[in-house]
């Protein structure tokens, strides 16, 4: 199957790209195309014009900035993030996530920005980025706005990004505690995934704060507030019992779709299994004390 005919443009600046998409009709940004081109070939997405952003300088940088934030250019491929030394050192969970997204062909050309903008509920990166409290930088005709990763995906295959807004950067504070991510998949995409990020006090004995996100169950990653509350200020050695005490309540609050990935009760159960496995890992790698 082939896509309907379209024009192709490769601007070299963000301004030109935004202008190109917005001009008329329904142009779309394009980088890896691993989702977009498939959808166009299946003719579920129609577009007049593809604006290739691979000619724009600087959209594939990864660095630790002066504010101790990690910046990832939206056009970074999964493979690049997986092998990046900064990510490997500071967020090994993200490195390993990116090393296992989809398949090697997707990882070689698919980008993290494209993954987020597609809004696919059964995806790996959105869950972990939400747990990392990432902020997404969107540049549009009327300027720049920064939105929390939690708010970016509105519902299934729908984000808050305007068609002529370009996602340029993903920024999140350099973690100061263990970050863990697990998924369960039996097929192409994850059935459920759980990401957890702790910030730990200097003595490595107490959790100052925790962000826990469960993905793929509803239309977008969901926080496990009850678990986050239970973990806040908790000595690491008390984590297991604290989570066990609230786990059922926490899981019951999740919105869970029945779909081809399984029944709601099964996937809810899996979320609990993955969370507990993340906890064990967090205790062993980060909690230390």
């Amino acid at each position, binding site marked *: *199957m*082939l896509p*309907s*005919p379209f024009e192709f443009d490769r601007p070299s600046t963000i301004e030109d790209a935004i202008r190109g998409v917005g001009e008329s009709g329904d142009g779309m940004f394009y980088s890896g195309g691993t989702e977009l081109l*498939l959808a166009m070939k*299946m*003719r579920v997405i129609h577009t007049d014009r593809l604006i290739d952003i691979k000619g724009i300088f600087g959209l594939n940088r990864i660095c630790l900035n002066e504010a101790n934030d990690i910046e990832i250019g939206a056009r970074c491929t999964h493979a690049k993030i997986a092998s990046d030394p900064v990510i490997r050192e500071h967020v090994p969970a993200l490195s390993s996530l990116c090393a296992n997204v989809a398949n090697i062909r997707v990882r070689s050309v698919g980008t993290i920005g494209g993954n987020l903008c597609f809004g696919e509920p059964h995806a790996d990166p959105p869950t972990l980025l939400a747990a990392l409290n990432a902020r997404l930088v969107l540049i549009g005709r009327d300027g720049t706005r920064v939105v929390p990763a939690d708010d970016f995906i509105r519902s299934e295959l729908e984000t808050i990004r305007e068609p002529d807004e370009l996602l340029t950067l993903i920024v999140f504070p350099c973690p100061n505690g263990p970050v863990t991510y697990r998924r*369960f998949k*039996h*097929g*192409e*995409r994850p059935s459920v995934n759980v990401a957890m990020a702790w910030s730990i006090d200097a003595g490595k004995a107490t959790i100052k704060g925790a962000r826990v996100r469960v993905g793929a169950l509803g239309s977008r990653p969901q926080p496990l507030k009850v678990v986050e509350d239970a973990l806040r200020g908790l000595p690491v050695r008390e984590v297991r019992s604290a989570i066990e005490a609230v786990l059922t309540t926490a899981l019951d609050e999740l919105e869970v779709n029945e779909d*081809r990935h*399984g*029944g709601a009760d*099964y996937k809810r*159960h*899996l979320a609990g*299994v993955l969370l507990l496995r993340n906890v064990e890992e967090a205790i062993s790698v980060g909690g230390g004390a």
Partner: protein
Amino acid sequence: MSATDNMSAVRPDLIEKVTGRAAYVTDLAIPGMLHGFVVRSPAIHARIVSIDTSAARSVDGVVDVLTGDDVASFGCWGVVLKDRPIIAIDRVRYVGEPVAVVIAETIEIAENAAELVNVEYDELPRATTIQEAIMDNAPLIHERHENLEDFYFKGGARPTQNSNVFHTYRNSVGDVDAAEAAAAYIHEDRFTFPAISHFAMEPHAVIADFRGDSLTVWAGAQTPTAVQKVLSRLYQLPLAKVRVIVPFVGGGFGGKASVKIEPLVAAASWKVQRPIRIAQSMIESMLTCRRLGADITIRTAVDAKGRILAKSAKLLLDGGAYSDTGSAVATKAANRIMGPYVVPNLRLEASAVYTNTIPGAAFRSIGGPQAVWAKESHMDNVASAIGMDPAEFRLLNFASRGERIRPDLRALDMDMGELMGRVTQSFAAKAQSSNRRASGLAVAATDPANTPISNAIVRLKIDGSILVSVSSIEIGQGAHATMARIAAQTLKQPPSAVTVLRTDTAVAPYDWGTGASRSTVVVGLSVENAALDAADQILEMVADVWELPRESLSLVEGGISTGSEVLTFHQIFHRALGVDSGEVIGRGAITPRSKKGALAESPLFWETSAGLAEIVVDEDTGEIHVPRYASAADVGRVINRVAAEGQDEGAAVMGFGHALHEALEFEDGQPINATPIDYSIPRISDVPPVFDTILVENGDGPGPGGAKGMGEGAILPVAPAIANALFSTYGIRITDLPMTPEKVWRALQKRS
């Protein structure tokens, strides 16, 4: 030897394939060729009210649009039942059925214009599952059944008039009721098996060139002579005017056997009298054919010592909207649910039914995985019920070498106990299992329909090079490399001297087709005969010209030894013919009368397999891991070890797909995962880290050097072996495939 020489020695086609030079149908271009795009039915079962092609026709570059009205007069085609129109005429019977073909200058134009074809449907009552199709008042998917006796297989279908049952096969031995009345224990189980996609890497692609009274077709067909025959009958062309050319084929697994989209593409070419190419996408091929799903009830009666007294099985197979070879699948499923056991009293009944879903088709060991899934899971249930070890229960009941499993089938030609022992030893020889690891066993003996009809031509050239021409298709299994070796061994020449031609029915002699594990044996024998015929001719030439006794002559590499000297082929032809040119053409034929009728009895050999799976279950998620698997087959003699092991491994890995991943799912007839994204097959990471292939060779097969056929057996034991491991160690019995994590988890929940 360099790595590439090494690869060429194993399979001459490998270098071409890994370097991308191998040409498949989709790589070909015929001068003047147009492109077709198929408009498919979104309806499950509906009357076609109208088809409006005017908007599509008005698009620049669109040449024509083919619809049912154009071809209604040609009537229907089929290979067992004549039930299939070239393209939907007044009615569609499944989602995906071709309704129109837009023919255009480019594939892009054709596909874009296809969106403008407007078809109005009027929905009809439907039957989308076996159960719906066999209900008393079920809507009839076909009103009448026209049987073609002996057309493709020996025999035909046995349809039940005024029903959706298009074939029923029965076989009965002894008195099951009396045996059950005397039995110490009777156990009955029911199993189901889903539709499964062939998922060949190369989707169906065909070019047809209809010119006046002749038709040339380029197709990735496994059975080119069947394609030729159906096209000849359908379009009333002499067989000699229908030419089928098969370049490289990117996997078939039965999905390219019999006849698939060739009549449709030929019709498009007939309409515009220009070559037409239709290259389907993966999704379209998933909507073209699939393995038949099954619903199986099986019952065994045993005596107090655990000997099987009687077995009965009722199998219902979901044949989809058109029968194709579904009747043979049902018959084979019944035959494949028996052995390799001694069953003195037997009652088999297998029916294939029409449903409003994608048509069923042959698929690696037709009916085998469905039957063996049921019978081998059932064997462990019976063993457990009577308190016997499942391996002992099997050993006690195995038919021995030379014993008949059923009076009308050839006696078992191998030792099943040995085969089972070999897989068991494979594990025992390695490190001890941890206590969380479980293992399960299954065996199979199937009767390939390997139709002993084949011809081959072997030409020995003056320079010692050899050309082999057969209708066997190189479909990735290594058939052509095997034919080359057989010709080389027979003529005492190096394998590198032999070239096997890609199949072209204008050149290649008649053969039944590539499937049913028959090529090495049946086509191999005809190649051997043809090589012997060529040898005879060249030896005769030397005996005659040099005036030497024939007994003193023998073939050696590069020529013929007279005992005192070696004459090169060059010298022989030159002196015999007077010029420095020439060849001898050897012809070999195999018929049911060959070898004094020894090939006539069915099956030609028993295709046998044993599988032992070691599994570890993540009880929190239900996920099954298979760290070790051992697969054994009695293949008589190995001709090409790398290729033979590859066939065994490939079949087993396909079995892992059936066991753990695959099901082509329908919701009320609507396919819901017929895309490569939603349909999950095993990846290399799903292959057991320890995988043993054991090929038993006793040189006792009917093929060249005592070879038997292979390549379909290893798929069979995988699912029941895994299920039996789940049963023995985790206490759960899964009765429908695939064994997904969720299914396993739910069974574990129910248990505790």
